Protein backbone atom coordinates (compact mmCIF):
# COMPACT_ATOMS: atom_id res chain seq x y z
CA UNK A 1 0.00 0.00 0.00
CA UNK A 2 1.71 3.22 -1.09
CA UNK A 3 0.14 6.18 0.52
CA UNK A 4 1.00 9.88 0.22
CA UNK A 5 0.62 10.12 3.99
CA UNK A 6 3.58 7.81 4.32
CA UNK A 7 6.02 10.67 4.98
CA UNK A 8 4.49 11.51 8.35
CA UNK A 9 5.62 8.26 9.84
CA UNK A 10 7.62 9.74 12.71
CA UNK A 11 4.59 11.09 14.57
CA UNK A 12 3.89 8.36 17.05
CA UNK A 13 5.62 5.21 18.11
CA UNK A 14 3.13 2.37 18.23
CA UNK A 15 4.17 -1.19 18.62
CA UNK A 16 2.87 -3.75 16.22
CA UNK A 17 1.89 -3.20 12.62
CA UNK A 18 -0.76 -0.56 12.18
CA UNK A 19 -2.64 0.84 9.25
CA UNK A 20 -0.96 3.62 7.31
CA UNK A 21 -3.86 5.96 7.80
CA UNK A 22 -3.48 5.72 11.54
CA UNK A 23 -0.01 7.13 11.60
CA UNK A 24 -1.10 10.70 11.15
CA UNK A 25 -2.12 12.67 14.16
CA UNK A 26 -5.07 14.18 12.25
CA UNK A 27 -6.84 10.81 12.14
CA UNK A 28 -7.68 9.58 15.62
CA UNK A 29 -8.30 5.88 16.13
CA UNK A 30 -11.88 6.61 17.14
CA UNK A 31 -13.68 9.74 16.11
CA UNK A 32 -17.20 10.50 17.23
CA UNK A 33 -18.77 13.59 15.68
CA UNK A 34 -22.14 15.14 16.45
CA UNK A 35 -23.43 11.73 17.51
CA UNK A 36 -27.09 11.38 18.34
CA UNK A 37 -28.77 8.20 19.58
CA UNK A 38 -31.33 6.94 22.06
CA UNK A 39 -33.99 4.39 22.85
CA UNK A 40 -37.48 4.51 21.39
CA UNK A 41 -38.87 8.05 21.60
CA UNK A 42 -36.14 9.18 24.00
CA UNK A 43 -33.07 10.87 22.63
CA UNK A 44 -30.19 10.29 25.01
CA UNK A 45 -27.18 11.63 23.13
CA UNK A 46 -27.80 15.11 21.75
CA UNK A 47 -24.90 15.46 19.36
CA UNK A 48 -21.70 14.61 21.17
CA UNK A 49 -18.20 14.75 19.73
CA UNK A 50 -15.13 13.07 21.14
CA UNK A 51 -12.10 11.23 19.92
CA UNK A 52 -9.52 8.73 21.08
CA UNK A 53 -6.03 8.82 19.62
CA UNK A 54 -4.07 5.62 19.27
CA UNK A 55 -2.28 4.82 22.53
CA UNK A 56 -4.46 7.03 24.71
CA UNK A 57 -6.64 6.35 27.69
CA UNK A 58 -9.65 8.63 27.41
CA UNK A 59 -12.28 8.77 30.10
CA UNK A 60 -15.86 9.99 30.07
CA UNK A 61 -17.14 11.03 33.48
CA UNK A 62 -20.55 12.24 34.53
CA UNK A 63 -23.53 11.62 36.78
CA UNK A 64 -26.08 8.84 36.49
CA UNK A 65 -28.17 9.16 33.37
CA UNK A 66 -25.78 11.51 31.60
CA UNK A 67 -25.48 9.12 28.65
CA UNK A 68 -22.08 7.59 29.30
CA UNK A 69 -23.17 3.99 28.80
CA UNK A 70 -25.27 4.92 25.78
CA UNK A 71 -22.15 6.49 24.28
CA UNK A 72 -20.26 3.22 24.59
CA UNK A 73 -23.18 1.14 23.41
CA UNK A 74 -23.55 3.31 20.32
CA UNK A 75 -19.84 3.21 19.57
CA UNK A 76 -19.86 -0.60 19.79
CA UNK A 77 -22.93 -0.83 17.57
CA UNK A 78 -25.33 -2.26 20.16
CA UNK A 79 -27.43 0.91 19.94
CA UNK A 80 -28.18 2.42 16.55
CA UNK A 81 -26.64 5.68 15.37
CA UNK A 82 -29.39 8.27 14.74
CA UNK A 83 -27.29 11.14 13.59
CA UNK A 84 -23.70 12.25 13.19
CA UNK A 85 -21.04 9.66 12.58
CA UNK A 86 -18.47 7.42 14.21
CA UNK A 87 -15.28 6.49 12.45
CA UNK A 88 -13.00 3.78 13.75
CA UNK A 89 -9.63 3.09 12.22
CA UNK A 90 -10.61 5.21 9.21
CA UNK A 91 -13.96 3.46 8.60
CA UNK A 92 -17.41 4.83 9.21
CA UNK A 93 -19.39 2.61 11.58
CA UNK A 94 -22.82 3.84 10.49
CA UNK A 95 -24.89 0.82 9.53
CA UNK A 96 -22.33 -1.76 10.57
CA UNK A 97 -23.82 -4.31 13.00
CA UNK A 98 -22.23 -4.88 16.40
CA UNK A 99 -20.84 -8.30 15.60
CA UNK A 100 -19.00 -6.90 12.56
CA UNK A 101 -17.53 -4.03 14.57
CA UNK A 102 -15.86 -6.57 16.85
CA UNK A 103 -13.98 -7.89 13.84
CA UNK A 104 -12.56 -4.42 13.16
CA UNK A 105 -10.70 -4.62 16.47
CA UNK A 106 -12.96 -2.95 19.00
CA UNK A 107 -13.86 -4.85 22.16
CA UNK A 108 -16.38 -3.90 24.81
CA UNK A 109 -16.59 -4.90 28.44
CA UNK A 110 -20.19 -3.92 29.10
CA UNK A 111 -21.65 -2.36 32.21
CA UNK A 112 -22.61 -4.85 34.90
CA UNK A 113 -19.97 -7.22 33.52
CA UNK A 114 -22.36 -9.43 31.53
CA UNK A 115 -20.26 -12.54 31.72
CA UNK A 116 -21.93 -15.81 30.75
CA UNK A 117 -22.94 -17.20 34.16
CA UNK A 118 -23.45 -20.79 33.09
CA UNK A 119 -20.32 -21.14 31.01
CA UNK A 120 -17.04 -21.90 32.74
CA UNK A 121 -14.32 -19.26 33.02
CA UNK A 122 -12.39 -20.99 30.25
CA UNK A 123 -15.46 -21.15 28.03
CA UNK A 124 -16.15 -17.47 28.67
CA UNK A 125 -12.66 -16.67 27.41
CA UNK A 126 -13.17 -18.94 24.39
CA UNK A 127 -16.38 -17.07 23.64
CA UNK A 128 -14.39 -13.84 23.73
CA UNK A 129 -12.27 -15.29 20.95
CA UNK A 130 -15.30 -16.31 18.91
CA UNK A 131 -14.18 -14.35 15.86
CA UNK A 132 -10.62 -15.69 16.06
CA UNK A 133 -10.14 -18.84 13.99
CA UNK A 134 -6.50 -19.45 14.91
CA UNK A 135 -6.61 -21.85 17.87
CA UNK A 136 -2.90 -21.50 18.65
CA UNK A 137 -3.38 -17.78 19.03
CA UNK A 138 -6.45 -18.34 21.24
CA UNK A 139 -4.45 -20.58 23.58
CA UNK A 140 -1.68 -17.98 23.74
CA UNK A 141 -4.18 -15.26 24.55
CA UNK A 142 -5.80 -17.34 27.28
CA UNK A 143 -2.38 -17.78 28.88
CA UNK A 144 -1.88 -14.05 28.59
CA UNK A 145 -5.22 -13.39 30.26
CA UNK A 146 -4.18 -15.69 33.10
CA UNK A 147 -0.96 -13.70 33.35
CA UNK A 148 -2.89 -10.47 33.87
CA UNK A 149 -5.43 -12.06 36.21
CA UNK A 150 -3.87 -15.14 37.84
CA UNK A 151 -7.01 -15.82 39.90
CA UNK A 152 -8.86 -16.71 36.68
CA UNK A 153 -6.50 -19.60 36.10
CA UNK A 154 -7.40 -21.10 39.48
CA UNK A 155 -11.04 -20.69 38.60
CA UNK A 156 -10.94 -21.82 34.98
CA UNK A 157 -13.27 -24.82 35.40
CA UNK A 158 -15.73 -22.90 37.56
CA UNK A 159 -18.96 -21.45 36.23
CA UNK A 160 -18.79 -17.72 35.59
CA UNK A 161 -21.82 -17.08 37.76
CA UNK A 162 -20.10 -18.51 40.83
CA UNK A 163 -17.26 -15.98 40.75
CA UNK A 164 -17.13 -12.99 43.07
CA UNK A 165 -17.93 -9.56 41.64
CA UNK A 166 -14.27 -8.63 41.31
CA UNK A 167 -13.41 -11.90 39.61
CA UNK A 168 -16.33 -11.46 37.22
CA UNK A 169 -15.07 -8.00 36.30
CA UNK A 170 -11.61 -9.40 35.66
CA UNK A 171 -13.18 -12.11 33.52
CA UNK A 172 -15.18 -9.53 31.56
CA UNK A 173 -12.03 -7.56 30.79
CA UNK A 174 -9.99 -10.68 30.03
CA UNK A 175 -12.75 -11.85 27.70
CA UNK A 176 -12.72 -8.53 25.86
CA UNK A 177 -8.94 -8.80 25.38
CA UNK A 178 -9.26 -12.08 23.51
CA UNK A 179 -9.63 -10.41 20.12
CA UNK A 180 -6.45 -8.35 20.73
CA UNK A 181 -8.42 -5.14 20.35
CA UNK A 182 -6.97 -1.87 19.13
CA UNK A 183 -9.54 -0.10 21.24
CA UNK A 184 -11.01 -1.37 24.49
CA UNK A 185 -14.31 0.07 25.69
CA UNK A 186 -14.69 -0.26 29.45
CA UNK A 187 -17.99 0.51 31.12
CA UNK A 188 -17.83 1.09 34.88
CA UNK A 189 -15.13 -1.45 35.71
CA UNK A 190 -15.21 -0.31 39.36
CA UNK A 191 -18.96 -0.86 39.79
CA UNK A 192 -19.72 -2.41 43.17
CA UNK A 193 -16.20 -3.63 43.84
CA UNK A 194 -13.96 -3.36 46.91
CA UNK A 195 -11.35 -0.56 46.66
CA UNK A 196 -8.48 -3.05 46.69
CA UNK A 197 -9.89 -4.91 43.69
CA UNK A 198 -10.59 -1.66 41.87
CA UNK A 199 -6.97 -0.60 42.24
CA UNK A 200 -5.80 -3.94 40.93
CA UNK A 201 -8.06 -3.71 37.89
CA UNK A 202 -6.97 -0.16 37.13
CA UNK A 203 -3.34 -1.25 37.41
CA UNK A 204 -4.01 -3.83 34.69
CA UNK A 205 -5.73 -1.22 32.52
CA UNK A 206 -2.66 0.97 32.80
CA UNK A 207 -0.40 -1.96 31.95
CA UNK A 208 -2.47 -2.80 28.87
CA UNK A 209 -2.22 0.81 27.79
CA UNK A 210 1.54 0.81 28.22
CA UNK A 211 1.62 -2.14 25.84
CA UNK A 212 -0.11 0.01 23.22
CA UNK A 213 -3.83 -0.53 23.66
CA UNK A 214 -6.14 2.45 23.45
CA UNK A 215 -8.87 2.63 26.04
CA UNK A 216 -12.16 4.49 26.25
CA UNK A 217 -13.18 4.34 29.88
CA UNK A 218 -16.55 5.29 31.30
CA UNK A 219 -16.54 5.71 35.07
CA UNK A 220 -18.45 7.11 37.98
CA UNK A 221 -15.32 6.91 40.08
CA UNK A 222 -14.09 10.09 38.42
CA UNK A 223 -10.99 10.59 40.52
CA UNK A 224 -9.57 7.18 39.77
CA UNK A 225 -10.48 7.40 36.09
CA UNK A 226 -8.85 10.81 35.67
CA UNK A 227 -5.72 9.59 37.43
CA UNK A 228 -4.96 6.97 34.81
CA UNK A 229 -6.40 8.79 31.78
CA UNK A 230 -4.62 11.10 29.34
CA UNK A 231 -7.70 13.15 28.64
CA UNK A 232 -11.20 13.39 30.00
CA UNK A 233 -14.65 14.43 28.85
CA UNK A 234 -17.41 15.56 31.19
CA UNK A 235 -20.93 14.60 30.20
CA UNK A 236 -24.19 16.12 31.38
CA UNK A 237 -27.63 15.08 30.16
CA UNK A 238 -26.53 13.90 26.76
CA UNK A 239 -23.99 16.58 25.94
CA UNK A 240 -20.25 17.03 26.47
CA UNK A 241 -19.82 20.05 28.71
CA UNK A 242 -16.08 20.07 29.22
CA UNK A 243 -12.97 18.43 27.86
CA UNK A 244 -9.38 18.81 28.92
CA UNK A 245 -6.26 16.82 29.77
CA UNK A 246 -7.06 14.60 32.75
CA UNK A 247 -4.69 16.43 35.08
CA UNK A 248 -6.40 19.75 34.40
CA UNK A 249 -9.83 18.29 35.11
CA UNK A 250 -8.53 16.87 38.38
CA UNK A 251 -7.39 20.35 39.40
CA UNK A 252 -10.45 22.19 38.13
CA UNK A 253 -12.38 23.49 41.15
CA UNK A 254 -15.75 23.10 39.43
CA UNK A 255 -15.06 19.47 38.54
CA UNK A 256 -13.76 18.88 42.04
CA UNK A 257 -16.96 20.24 43.50
CA UNK A 258 -19.29 18.40 41.14
CA UNK A 259 -17.62 15.01 40.66
CA UNK A 260 -14.72 14.57 43.02
CA UNK A 261 -16.51 15.33 46.27
CA UNK A 262 -14.27 18.11 47.47
Amino acid at each position, binding site marked *: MSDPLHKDQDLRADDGPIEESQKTSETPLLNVSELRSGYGPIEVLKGISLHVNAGEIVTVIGANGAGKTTTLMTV*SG*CVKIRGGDITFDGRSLTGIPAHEIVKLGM*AQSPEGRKIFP*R*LTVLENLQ*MGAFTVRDQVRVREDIEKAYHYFPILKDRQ*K*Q*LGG*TLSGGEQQMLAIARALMIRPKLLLLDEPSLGLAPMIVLKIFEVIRELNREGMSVLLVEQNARLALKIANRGYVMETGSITATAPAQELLNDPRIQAAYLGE
Partner: protein
Amino acid sequence: MSSGVLRKLAGLLVLALVITYPLIPGLNDKIESMLGKKIGDSFPTIFIYGILALALNVVVGYTGLLHLGIAAFFGIGAFTTGILTVGQYPFQFGFLPVLVVSTMAAALLGGILCVPTLRLRGDYLALVTLGFGLITVTALRNLQEITGGMQTLNPIPPPKIPEILRCPLESLGLTMSWTEDYRLFYYLTLGYLLLVFVFLRNLEHSRLGRAWVALREDELAATCMGLNAARLKLLAFTLAAGLAGMAGSLYATKMTNTTEPTRFDFQLSCTILSCLILGGLGNRTGVLLGVFLVAGYDFLFAPAADAWLQRNDMNPNDKGYLKFSMWNLMIFGLALVLMMRFRSSGLLPKRRGTTTGKGA
Protein backbone atom coordinates in the same frame (compact mmCIF):
# COMPACT_ATOMS: atom_id res chain seq x y z
CA MET B 1 -16.31 -36.05 40.36
CA SER B 2 -17.36 -39.54 41.35
CA SER B 3 -20.99 -38.73 40.64
CA GLY B 4 -19.96 -37.80 37.10
CA VAL B 5 -18.31 -41.19 36.65
CA LEU B 6 -21.36 -42.85 38.18
CA ARG B 7 -23.60 -41.07 35.69
CA LYS B 8 -21.46 -42.20 32.81
CA LEU B 9 -21.50 -45.81 34.04
CA ALA B 10 -25.27 -45.73 34.49
CA GLY B 11 -25.61 -44.36 30.96
CA LEU B 12 -23.46 -47.12 29.48
CA LEU B 13 -25.37 -49.75 31.43
CA VAL B 14 -28.69 -48.51 30.07
CA LEU B 15 -27.22 -48.43 26.56
CA ALA B 16 -26.00 -52.02 26.88
CA LEU B 17 -29.41 -53.08 28.18
CA VAL B 18 -31.22 -51.37 25.31
CA ILE B 19 -28.95 -52.98 22.73
CA THR B 20 -29.11 -56.51 24.15
CA TYR B 21 -32.78 -56.52 25.22
CA PRO B 22 -34.22 -57.94 21.98
CA LEU B 23 -31.39 -60.46 21.64
CA ILE B 24 -32.03 -62.27 24.91
CA PRO B 25 -34.14 -65.19 23.71
CA GLY B 26 -37.67 -65.19 24.97
CA LEU B 27 -37.33 -62.09 27.16
CA ASN B 28 -39.62 -59.89 25.10
CA ASP B 29 -42.11 -62.74 24.61
CA LYS B 30 -42.17 -63.36 28.32
CA ILE B 31 -42.77 -59.69 29.16
CA GLU B 32 -45.44 -59.51 26.47
CA SER B 33 -47.31 -62.50 27.83
CA MET B 34 -46.98 -61.09 31.34
CA LEU B 35 -48.42 -57.74 30.31
CA GLY B 36 -50.87 -59.25 27.86
CA LYS B 37 -49.79 -56.70 25.26
CA LYS B 38 -47.42 -56.63 22.30
CA ILE B 39 -44.83 -54.05 23.36
CA GLY B 40 -41.87 -54.82 21.10
CA ASP B 41 -43.50 -52.86 18.33
CA SER B 42 -43.67 -49.72 20.49
CA PHE B 43 -39.95 -49.34 21.06
CA PRO B 44 -39.10 -47.98 17.59
CA THR B 45 -41.74 -45.28 18.06
CA ILE B 46 -40.21 -44.33 21.40
CA PHE B 47 -36.77 -44.10 19.78
CA ILE B 48 -38.19 -41.91 17.01
CA TYR B 49 -39.75 -39.63 19.62
CA GLY B 50 -36.30 -39.55 21.19
CA ILE B 51 -34.85 -38.11 17.96
CA LEU B 52 -37.70 -35.60 17.80
CA ALA B 53 -37.08 -34.50 21.38
CA LEU B 54 -33.35 -34.12 20.76
CA ALA B 55 -34.21 -31.97 17.74
CA LEU B 56 -36.45 -29.71 19.82
CA ASN B 57 -33.73 -29.56 22.45
CA VAL B 58 -31.44 -27.82 19.95
CA VAL B 59 -33.73 -24.81 19.91
CA VAL B 60 -35.27 -24.84 23.38
CA GLY B 61 -32.40 -26.32 25.36
CA TYR B 62 -29.36 -24.78 23.69
CA THR B 63 -30.52 -21.38 22.49
CA GLY B 64 -33.32 -20.96 25.03
CA LEU B 65 -35.97 -19.96 22.47
CA LEU B 66 -39.44 -21.40 22.90
CA HIS B 67 -40.55 -23.50 19.93
CA LEU B 68 -44.14 -24.79 19.91
CA GLY B 69 -44.34 -26.23 16.43
CA ILE B 70 -41.79 -29.03 16.23
CA ALA B 71 -44.51 -31.56 15.29
CA ALA B 72 -45.08 -29.67 12.03
CA PHE B 73 -41.57 -30.49 10.85
CA PHE B 74 -42.03 -34.08 11.99
CA GLY B 75 -45.13 -34.17 9.77
CA ILE B 76 -43.36 -32.51 6.86
CA GLY B 77 -40.69 -35.20 7.06
CA ALA B 78 -43.33 -37.93 7.12
CA PHE B 79 -45.28 -36.58 4.16
CA THR B 80 -42.17 -35.88 2.11
CA THR B 81 -41.28 -39.52 2.65
CA GLY B 82 -44.80 -40.50 1.61
CA ILE B 83 -44.65 -38.50 -1.60
CA LEU B 84 -41.24 -39.90 -2.52
CA THR B 85 -42.15 -43.55 -1.98
CA VAL B 86 -45.81 -44.40 -2.59
CA GLY B 87 -47.15 -45.84 -5.83
CA GLN B 88 -49.27 -42.92 -7.02
CA TYR B 89 -46.17 -40.74 -7.41
CA PRO B 90 -43.51 -41.50 -10.02
CA PHE B 91 -40.54 -41.24 -7.61
CA GLN B 92 -40.42 -44.37 -5.46
CA PHE B 93 -36.91 -43.74 -4.21
CA GLY B 94 -35.05 -46.00 -1.80
CA PHE B 95 -34.92 -45.53 1.95
CA LEU B 96 -31.67 -43.56 2.29
CA PRO B 97 -32.22 -40.94 -0.42
CA VAL B 98 -35.73 -40.44 0.92
CA LEU B 99 -34.40 -39.93 4.42
CA VAL B 100 -31.91 -37.35 3.17
CA VAL B 101 -34.45 -35.47 1.06
CA SER B 102 -37.03 -35.47 3.87
CA THR B 103 -34.43 -34.05 6.26
CA MET B 104 -33.49 -31.37 3.75
CA ALA B 105 -37.08 -30.45 2.99
CA ALA B 106 -37.94 -29.98 6.65
CA ALA B 107 -34.72 -28.05 7.27
CA LEU B 108 -35.43 -25.78 4.31
CA LEU B 109 -38.92 -25.00 5.55
CA GLY B 110 -37.53 -24.44 9.04
CA GLY B 111 -35.06 -21.93 7.63
CA ILE B 112 -37.72 -20.17 5.57
CA LEU B 113 -39.96 -19.88 8.63
CA CYS B 114 -37.07 -18.53 10.65
CA VAL B 115 -35.92 -15.71 8.37
CA PRO B 116 -38.90 -13.38 8.88
CA THR B 117 -39.28 -14.31 12.56
CA LEU B 118 -35.69 -13.74 13.66
CA ARG B 119 -36.42 -10.29 14.98
CA LEU B 120 -39.11 -11.61 17.28
CA ARG B 121 -38.25 -12.50 20.82
CA GLY B 122 -39.72 -14.57 23.60
CA ASP B 123 -43.46 -15.05 23.48
CA TYR B 124 -43.87 -13.64 19.98
CA LEU B 125 -41.51 -16.18 18.49
CA ALA B 126 -43.32 -18.95 20.36
CA LEU B 127 -46.62 -17.73 18.88
CA VAL B 128 -45.25 -17.81 15.34
CA THR B 129 -44.03 -21.39 15.76
CA LEU B 130 -47.40 -22.32 17.26
CA GLY B 131 -49.19 -20.76 14.29
CA PHE B 132 -46.91 -22.50 11.82
CA GLY B 133 -47.70 -25.81 13.48
CA LEU B 134 -51.45 -25.24 13.16
CA ILE B 135 -51.17 -24.09 9.54
CA THR B 136 -49.10 -27.11 8.60
CA VAL B 137 -51.61 -29.59 10.00
CA THR B 138 -54.48 -27.84 8.21
CA ALA B 139 -52.53 -27.68 4.97
CA LEU B 140 -51.59 -31.36 5.11
CA ARG B 141 -55.20 -32.27 5.75
CA ASN B 142 -56.75 -30.08 3.06
CA LEU B 143 -54.24 -30.52 0.25
CA GLN B 144 -55.82 -33.89 -0.37
CA GLU B 145 -54.65 -34.17 -3.97
CA ILE B 146 -51.05 -34.06 -2.80
CA THR B 147 -51.00 -35.48 0.70
CA GLY B 148 -53.97 -37.83 0.57
CA GLY B 149 -55.49 -35.88 3.47
CA MET B 150 -56.98 -38.09 6.15
CA GLN B 151 -56.66 -41.10 3.79
CA THR B 152 -52.87 -40.86 4.25
CA LEU B 153 -50.26 -41.86 1.71
CA ASN B 154 -49.63 -45.59 1.74
CA PRO B 155 -48.13 -48.06 1.59
CA ILE B 156 -44.60 -46.87 2.30
CA PRO B 157 -42.25 -49.79 1.65
CA PRO B 158 -39.74 -50.82 4.31
CA PRO B 159 -36.03 -50.25 3.62
CA LYS B 160 -34.12 -52.86 1.67
CA ILE B 161 -31.57 -54.73 3.74
CA PRO B 162 -28.17 -54.74 2.01
CA GLU B 163 -26.85 -58.21 1.23
CA ILE B 164 -23.76 -57.66 3.38
CA LEU B 165 -25.91 -57.18 6.48
CA ARG B 166 -28.20 -60.11 5.80
CA CYS B 167 -25.80 -62.76 7.03
CA PRO B 168 -24.73 -61.19 10.36
CA LEU B 169 -28.33 -60.25 11.15
CA GLU B 170 -29.56 -63.78 10.50
CA SER B 171 -26.80 -65.20 12.67
CA LEU B 172 -28.18 -63.05 15.52
CA GLY B 173 -31.47 -64.82 15.07
CA LEU B 174 -33.38 -62.03 13.34
CA THR B 175 -35.84 -62.91 10.60
CA MET B 176 -35.66 -60.80 7.49
CA SER B 177 -39.25 -59.57 7.58
CA TRP B 178 -40.00 -56.02 8.67
CA THR B 179 -43.56 -56.88 9.61
CA GLU B 180 -42.95 -60.11 11.49
CA ASP B 181 -39.84 -59.20 13.45
CA TYR B 182 -40.07 -55.94 15.39
CA ARG B 183 -36.32 -56.05 15.98
CA LEU B 184 -35.39 -54.78 12.52
CA PHE B 185 -37.09 -51.43 13.12
CA TYR B 186 -35.87 -51.57 16.70
CA TYR B 187 -32.25 -51.54 15.62
CA LEU B 188 -32.77 -49.22 12.67
CA THR B 189 -34.36 -46.49 14.79
CA LEU B 190 -32.03 -47.09 17.73
CA GLY B 191 -29.09 -46.70 15.35
CA TYR B 192 -30.34 -43.33 14.11
CA LEU B 193 -31.10 -42.20 17.65
CA LEU B 194 -27.53 -42.99 18.73
CA LEU B 195 -26.18 -41.27 15.64
CA VAL B 196 -28.11 -38.09 16.42
CA PHE B 197 -27.13 -38.33 20.09
CA VAL B 198 -23.41 -38.51 19.34
CA PHE B 199 -23.66 -35.83 16.66
CA LEU B 200 -25.31 -33.43 19.11
CA ARG B 201 -22.82 -34.29 21.85
CA ASN B 202 -19.96 -33.27 19.59
CA LEU B 203 -21.86 -30.19 18.48
CA GLU B 204 -22.40 -29.11 22.09
CA HIS B 205 -18.68 -29.03 22.71
CA SER B 206 -17.92 -27.20 19.48
CA ARG B 207 -17.57 -23.48 18.88
CA LEU B 208 -21.13 -23.42 17.60
CA GLY B 209 -22.54 -25.17 20.68
CA ARG B 210 -20.82 -22.73 22.99
CA ALA B 211 -22.08 -19.84 20.94
CA TRP B 212 -25.68 -21.05 21.29
CA VAL B 213 -25.35 -21.30 25.05
CA ALA B 214 -23.75 -17.84 25.20
CA LEU B 215 -26.64 -16.47 23.19
CA ARG B 216 -29.11 -17.99 25.65
CA GLU B 217 -27.22 -16.62 28.63
CA ASP B 218 -26.92 -13.05 27.43
CA GLU B 219 -27.68 -11.93 23.90
CA LEU B 220 -26.15 -8.48 24.37
CA ALA B 221 -22.87 -9.78 25.73
CA ALA B 222 -22.78 -12.43 23.01
CA THR B 223 -23.18 -9.74 20.35
CA CYS B 224 -20.34 -7.80 21.97
CA MET B 225 -18.16 -10.90 21.45
CA GLY B 226 -18.83 -10.79 17.72
CA LEU B 227 -21.56 -13.42 17.55
CA ASN B 228 -24.09 -12.98 14.78
CA ALA B 229 -27.22 -13.67 16.81
CA ALA B 230 -29.55 -13.84 13.82
CA ARG B 231 -27.39 -16.35 12.00
CA LEU B 232 -26.99 -18.56 15.07
CA LYS B 233 -30.74 -18.66 15.67
CA LEU B 234 -31.32 -19.50 12.01
CA LEU B 235 -28.86 -22.37 12.29
CA ALA B 236 -30.49 -23.75 15.41
CA PHE B 237 -33.98 -23.58 13.88
CA THR B 238 -32.85 -25.17 10.65
CA LEU B 239 -30.99 -27.97 12.38
CA ALA B 240 -33.93 -28.72 14.66
CA ALA B 241 -36.34 -28.74 11.73
CA GLY B 242 -34.05 -31.03 9.76
CA LEU B 243 -33.66 -33.55 12.58
CA ALA B 244 -37.41 -33.48 13.20
CA GLY B 245 -37.94 -34.14 9.48
CA MET B 246 -35.59 -37.09 9.68
CA ALA B 247 -37.55 -38.45 12.64
CA GLY B 248 -40.73 -37.98 10.62
CA SER B 249 -39.29 -39.92 7.72
CA LEU B 250 -38.37 -42.81 10.02
CA TYR B 251 -41.82 -42.64 11.59
CA ALA B 252 -43.64 -42.87 8.26
CA THR B 253 -41.42 -45.76 7.21
CA LYS B 254 -42.06 -47.54 10.48
CA MET B 255 -45.82 -46.99 10.25
CA THR B 256 -45.80 -47.93 6.52
CA ASN B 257 -47.95 -44.85 5.87
CA THR B 258 -47.82 -41.14 6.59
CA THR B 259 -50.53 -41.45 9.28
CA GLU B 260 -53.27 -38.84 9.54
CA PRO B 261 -52.11 -35.21 9.48
CA THR B 262 -53.83 -34.56 12.81
CA ARG B 263 -51.23 -36.71 14.49
CA PHE B 264 -48.72 -33.91 13.92
CA ASP B 265 -50.74 -31.29 15.78
CA PHE B 266 -50.04 -29.05 18.72
CA GLN B 267 -50.57 -31.81 21.22
CA LEU B 268 -47.55 -33.70 19.93
CA SER B 269 -45.39 -30.54 20.05
CA CYS B 270 -46.55 -30.03 23.60
CA THR B 271 -45.88 -33.60 24.65
CA ILE B 272 -42.36 -33.47 23.29
CA LEU B 273 -41.79 -30.16 25.06
CA SER B 274 -42.98 -31.74 28.31
CA CYS B 275 -40.47 -34.54 27.82
CA LEU B 276 -37.73 -31.91 27.67
CA ILE B 277 -38.90 -30.11 30.76
CA LEU B 278 -39.47 -33.33 32.67
CA GLY B 279 -36.08 -34.79 31.81
CA GLY B 280 -33.94 -31.67 31.99
CA LEU B 281 -33.71 -28.92 29.38
CA GLY B 282 -30.46 -28.89 27.48
CA ASN B 283 -29.28 -32.25 28.80
CA ARG B 284 -29.43 -34.94 26.11
CA THR B 285 -29.56 -37.83 28.54
CA GLY B 286 -32.25 -36.11 30.57
CA VAL B 287 -34.28 -35.44 27.43
CA LEU B 288 -34.19 -39.12 26.52
CA LEU B 289 -35.20 -40.07 30.06
CA GLY B 290 -38.15 -37.67 29.74
CA VAL B 291 -39.15 -39.28 26.42
CA PHE B 292 -38.90 -42.72 27.93
CA LEU B 293 -41.13 -41.75 30.85
CA VAL B 294 -43.77 -39.96 28.77
CA ALA B 295 -43.80 -42.24 25.72
CA GLY B 296 -43.25 -45.21 28.01
CA TYR B 297 -46.46 -44.31 29.81
CA ASP B 298 -48.36 -43.89 26.55
CA PHE B 299 -47.05 -46.92 24.70
CA LEU B 300 -46.00 -49.40 27.37
CA PHE B 301 -47.48 -48.79 30.79
CA ALA B 302 -50.98 -47.56 29.98
CA PRO B 303 -51.89 -50.23 27.38
CA ALA B 304 -50.50 -52.96 29.60
CA ALA B 305 -52.35 -51.66 32.65
CA ASP B 306 -55.59 -51.34 30.68
CA ALA B 307 -55.24 -54.89 29.39
CA TRP B 308 -54.62 -56.07 32.94
CA LEU B 309 -57.76 -54.33 34.23
CA GLN B 310 -59.73 -55.86 31.36
CA ARG B 311 -58.49 -59.34 32.08
CA ASN B 312 -59.30 -59.10 35.74
CA ASP B 313 -62.80 -57.84 35.05
CA MET B 314 -62.18 -54.55 36.79
CA ASN B 315 -63.40 -52.53 33.83
CA PRO B 316 -66.21 -54.68 32.44
CA ASN B 317 -67.99 -52.00 30.40
CA ASP B 318 -64.80 -50.59 28.89
CA LYS B 319 -65.39 -47.21 30.55
CA GLY B 320 -63.01 -44.47 29.40
CA TYR B 321 -62.46 -43.05 32.85
CA LEU B 322 -61.24 -46.42 34.07
CA LYS B 323 -58.53 -46.53 31.43
CA PHE B 324 -54.99 -45.38 32.18
CA SER B 325 -54.49 -44.38 28.56
CA MET B 326 -57.27 -41.79 28.88
CA TRP B 327 -55.62 -40.11 31.86
CA ASN B 328 -52.28 -39.49 30.18
CA LEU B 329 -52.54 -35.71 29.68
CA MET B 330 -53.88 -35.27 33.20
CA ILE B 331 -50.93 -37.18 34.60
CA PHE B 332 -48.34 -35.38 32.44
CA GLY B 333 -49.82 -32.05 33.49
CA LEU B 334 -49.70 -32.98 37.15
CA ALA B 335 -46.14 -34.27 36.75
CA LEU B 336 -45.10 -30.96 35.18
CA VAL B 337 -46.68 -28.93 37.99
CA LEU B 338 -44.92 -31.05 40.58
CA MET B 339 -41.64 -30.77 38.65
CA MET B 340 -41.88 -26.99 38.57
CA ARG B 341 -42.48 -26.92 42.30
CA PHE B 342 -39.87 -29.40 43.48
CA ARG B 343 -37.25 -29.84 40.78
CA SER B 344 -37.56 -27.04 38.27
CA SER B 345 -34.47 -27.93 36.24
CA GLY B 346 -35.68 -31.43 35.42
CA LEU B 347 -34.88 -34.94 36.60
CA LEU B 348 -31.38 -34.81 35.14
CA PRO B 349 -30.42 -31.13 35.06
CA LYS B 350 -27.76 -29.82 32.75
CA ARG B 351 -24.43 -29.48 34.50
CA ARG B 352 -21.40 -27.59 33.36
CA GLY B 353 -18.17 -26.98 35.21
CA THR B 354 -17.76 -27.09 38.96
CA THR B 355 -19.39 -24.66 41.34
CA THR B 356 -17.08 -24.07 44.25
CA GLY B 357 -14.03 -26.13 43.47
CA LYS B 358 -15.36 -28.84 45.77
CA GLY B 359 -15.86 -30.97 42.68
CA ALA B 360 -19.56 -31.35 43.33
